[in-house]
């Protein structure tokens, strides 16, 4: 099956005062239609920048310096600015972290959604509102026609995030990038949204990249998981492989520190230290200073081992049977 989204060697750099920061470093992954890929990492691991890089939404001083982003076989990186803009929202859409901020506070929900419809499709305003209403129905918003006339501040956080998701769905895109869309929500609302997203992926065949730091969320939602550390993908595989039999010591550490994946009654292990400053990245494996398995050889760049469930490590944990 052809991938809906195929990212190859994506690299994004920021020219900061402290030096060149490679926030996304040679990242490659693919997502097939109808599948959900969890992109997991700590704050500062480059996972959100990866999401924005896919849409080409990197502002100066940032720059996407290398790689391909194939959406249904079209490389977004080779498109002219206006052609790229036409892809956004139509073939590949995005949902943001904070639903309180993503909607324009002074415009009616319906006007904002209708604008998003009409920028790609030449339809009447009325038809655009009808499309918006249908989209709100799809994400399970009751009394959709009424909500369209509301302003964002009249809706709850969960409702606003559903509106954002509905907006992303307006053009039935092949790919949706969801940048921590449930982080700012109550746990109960979070559960509803996750169930909704799962259903949408199954029904519409949309490929979803779910960017998150929350391994518990991803383990229940995603089909595949990529773990990011210091701008690189250090491990990737199906959710069962990565959660059930992690190969990278960093993934192991992440899983161990999730309360719900850990036997109760014992102290929760944590990964010592914090994410490295990307400006002064140590040579070799960036996880080396925090890694319990690190040896001398880790000062050199780690190899990618395994094909089905690869990990970027000199000393991967128990070889997963291919």
């Amino acid at each position, binding site marked *: 099956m052809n991938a809906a989204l195929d990212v190859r060697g994506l690299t994004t750099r920021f020219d900061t005062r402290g030096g060149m920061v490679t926030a996304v470093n040679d990242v490659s992954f693919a997502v097939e239609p109808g599948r959900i890929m969890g992109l997991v990492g700590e704050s500062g691991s480059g996972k959100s920048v990866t999401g924005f890089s896919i*849409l080409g*939404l990197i502002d*100066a001083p940032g720059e996407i310096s290398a790689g391909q982003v194939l959406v249904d076989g079209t490389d977004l990186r080779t498109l002219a600015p206006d052609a790229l*803009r*036409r*892809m*956004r*929202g*139509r073939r590949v*859409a*995005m949902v*943001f972290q*904070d639903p309180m*901020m*993503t*909607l*324009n*506070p*002074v*415009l*009616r929900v319906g006007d904002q959604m209708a*604008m*998003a419809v009409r*920028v*790609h499709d030449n339809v009447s305003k009325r038809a655009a509102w009808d499309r918006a209403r249908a989209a709100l129905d799809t994400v399970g918003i009751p009394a959709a026609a009424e909500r369209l006339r509301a*302003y964002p*501040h009249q809706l709850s956080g969960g409702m606003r995030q559903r509106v*954002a998701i509905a*907006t*992303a769905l307006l053009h039935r895109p092949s790919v949706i990038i969801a940048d921590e869309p449930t982080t700012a929500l109550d746990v109960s609302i979070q559960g509803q949204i996750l169930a909704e997203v799962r259903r949408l992926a199954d029904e519409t065949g949309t490929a979803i990249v779910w960017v998150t730091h929350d391994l518990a969320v991803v383990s229940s939602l995603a089909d595949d998981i990529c773990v990011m550390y210091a701008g690189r993908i250090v491990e990737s595989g199906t959710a069962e492989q990565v959660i059930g039999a992690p190969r990278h010591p960093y993934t192991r550490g992440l899983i161990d520190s999730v309360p719900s994946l850990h036997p109760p009654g014992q102290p929760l292990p944590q990964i010592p230290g914090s994410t490295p400053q990307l400006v002064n990245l140590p040579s070799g494996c960036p996880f080396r200073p925090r890694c319990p398995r690190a040896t001398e050889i880790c000062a050199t760049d780690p190899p990618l081992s395994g094909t089905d469930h690869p990990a970027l490590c000199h000393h991967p944990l128990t070889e997963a049977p291919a």
Partner: protein
Amino acid sequence: MLGYLIRRLAQAAVVVLAMSVIVFVGVYAIGNPIDVLIDPGATQEIREKLIAQYGLDQPLWRQYFTFIANVAQGDMGTSMVYNIPVVDLVFSRLPATLELVFVSVCIATLIGIPAGLYAGYRPNGVAAKLIMALSVLGFSVPTFWIGMLLIMAFAVNLGILPSGGRGDVGSFLGINTSLATLDGWSHVILPAINLSLFKMGLLIRLTRAGMVEAMRTDYVRFARAQGLTEREIVFSHVLRNISIPIVTVFGLELGSTLAFAVVTESVFTWPGVGKLIIDSILQLDRPVMVTYLVLVVILFVLINLTVDLIYARLDPRVRLKGGS
């Protein structure tokens, strides 16, 4: 909405009343108009007769209540200098100031807001830096000096525009204004530019600041992620959000320009109310001062009310208190 309006108008009435007391006391404190108006050689008899005629022998509070009683009957008093009703005097000068302010506000808005939007959209570009530098000049160089430079350049050296005064008055839609004639425009354009520079600088900076901030918000990113064009993002999403502070400052500036266009009017000998009030202060023409200042207060109150109503239109989160 209606309740809100009624409450605001009641508040306005209180403000105007309080202001009239302050103005009356203040004007009383400045000096005795008789000393200025009367021929120093006049006899004591004539002097006392005049003082009694203007009611200046009465205690202050009685003068005030006489004034209020007259106002209640629609009589704002008579100018001591021109000896014509104050209302007629002020309203004979007001159209000149209104047209000057109107033109200058239009210039400031039509140039200031687009320039600010551009400077905020590309804040690091050369053009943006140039715009910002000019905006600093706009509100830090003294108005009278720029006014004189404009006269030097366009009236004296180039000789293409008149140096001062108001041009021919024509009639447009039943309103008598110099803006209806070409000669009127040639007279109004220099003082209007002069008067607009400060406001233009302010609008540029305000718009730019709002724009820079707005372009970093999530809703702009989200709009970009939907594939909206930059034009739609700026004009449909951003402009409305940043117009709230702009409207506030615009309103205040409009009021103060109308009330205190004095400097420009003096430089260009523009026969507006600003010139009238300066003259009346110099001659201690009390009724004119009091009437004018009360008019200014009413003006500010009305502008603020309008600004509040526009707020409620622009930002759905703003609720006008007092009656729904």
